[in-house]
């Protein structure tokens, strides 16, 4: 039998089951025993070198951060997959248009039950109730830009807040967030103090140099067409989404 392959030597070292022939060969072959000893020594050296890389990590703080992220997502997402920022606008818009056109057409017909239904109801909007809360409209700011760089800075963003980033056609940058958030802008820079999410940031697709900073930390930047992430985004097929830790 020829000498054992390097693969078999490593499998022997690492306790992976190998052919009985290989074990038998090892008993008889000094060359392969030496190779195994070298592999074992190499293993010790590598483990030692890798240990040198280790640092101290604060487990208690990390535990709290993970618990906060979980709580934030449960609040933000309602336990299910979050819809994309674009889909609800389109879907709701189409549904509303269809409803208006259908209702209008039916109510125009004399004797229509829809006409009777409408005439029997007050035209005043219903008062908000616990079962039907008033919809919360996001607030925001839009700013026209001619060229880069474009910088968006979000401050005081609460943990667990969802931030959706969209690259959109046109030449304006926009930020939307929960009511109570405040916004200001200067040349190529938009700043916002965020009280809650979900937050949507729109960058113009035509501008090559953009960046998004959240609570003092760069989450995303774009330069020469390449997106760079300073913070891991959610994998969302419809966009880029961050959850603030």
């Amino acid at each position, binding site marked *: 039998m020829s000498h054992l392959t390097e693969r078999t030597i490593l499998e022997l070292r690492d306790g992976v089951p190998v052919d009985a022939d290989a074990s038998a060969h090892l008993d008889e072959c000094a060359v392969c025993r030496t190779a195994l000893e070298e592999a074992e020594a190499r293993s010790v050296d590598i483990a030692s070198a890798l240990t040198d890389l280790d640092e101290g990590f604060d*487990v208690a703080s990390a535990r709290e951060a993970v618990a906060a*992220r979980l709580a934030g997502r449960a609040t933000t997402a309602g336990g299910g997959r979050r819809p994309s920022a674009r889909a609800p606008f389109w879907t709701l818009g189409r549904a509303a248009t269809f409803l208006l056109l259908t209702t209008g057409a039916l109510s125009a017909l004399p004797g229509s039950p829809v006409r009777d239904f409408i005439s029997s109801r007050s035209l005043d909007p219903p008062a908000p109730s616990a079962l039907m809360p008033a919809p919360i409209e996001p607030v925001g700011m839009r700013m026209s830009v001619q060229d880069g760089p474009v910088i968006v800075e979000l401050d005081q963003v609460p943990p667990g807040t969802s931030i959706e980033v969209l690259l959109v056609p046109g030449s304006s940058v926009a930020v939307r967030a929960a009511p109570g958030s405040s916004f200001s802008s200067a040349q190529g820079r938009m700043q916002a103090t965020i009280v809650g999410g979900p937050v949507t940031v729109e960058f113009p697709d035509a501008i090559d140099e953009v960046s998004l900073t959240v609570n003092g930390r760069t989450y995303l930047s774009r330069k020469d067409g390449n997106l760079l992430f300073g913070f891991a985004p959610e994998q969302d097929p419809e966009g880029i989404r961050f959850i603030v*830790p």
Partner: protein
Amino acid sequence: MDFNTTFDEEYLPLVRYCHRLSGDRDTAEDVAQEAMVRLFEHGVEGSSAGVRAWLFKTATHLIRDRYRVEGNRMRLLRENPVMTTDPETPDAALERTENRARARRALDAMPARDREMLLMRYSGFSYREIADTVDVAATSVGTLLARAEHRFTSVLAAAGEPA
């Protein structure tokens, strides 16, 4: 699955692995925490070994995705202050810093897959679990791992020699 128990058992090895893999402390903490969040969000159940394998695989993919969009540019030789509870002499601290830089340089010189395999092996995973994470046949792991080890030790040795 108890949150505190699972967290305390799994977080430290996970964040160390992420740190070794990414070379960046912030990235390691972000990714390890994200993997833990997903573990509980998805309600992953199973043996302790199974949960750990799931976490490491998720973290590996998160780091891979992050660096893929950055054009696979690993941050090189990021020097972080040594955190230790033992008093250390200046010479020992210097030696430790140099050793760390050498190990980092050796890891960064490796192809991504080799690096992932090496770090998973030295985090205690079986060949089958490594194969599952890096998408290679289990029978190829020994060969690929041998190559990765030789590459790592050769760069490590070269980095230790005077220029």
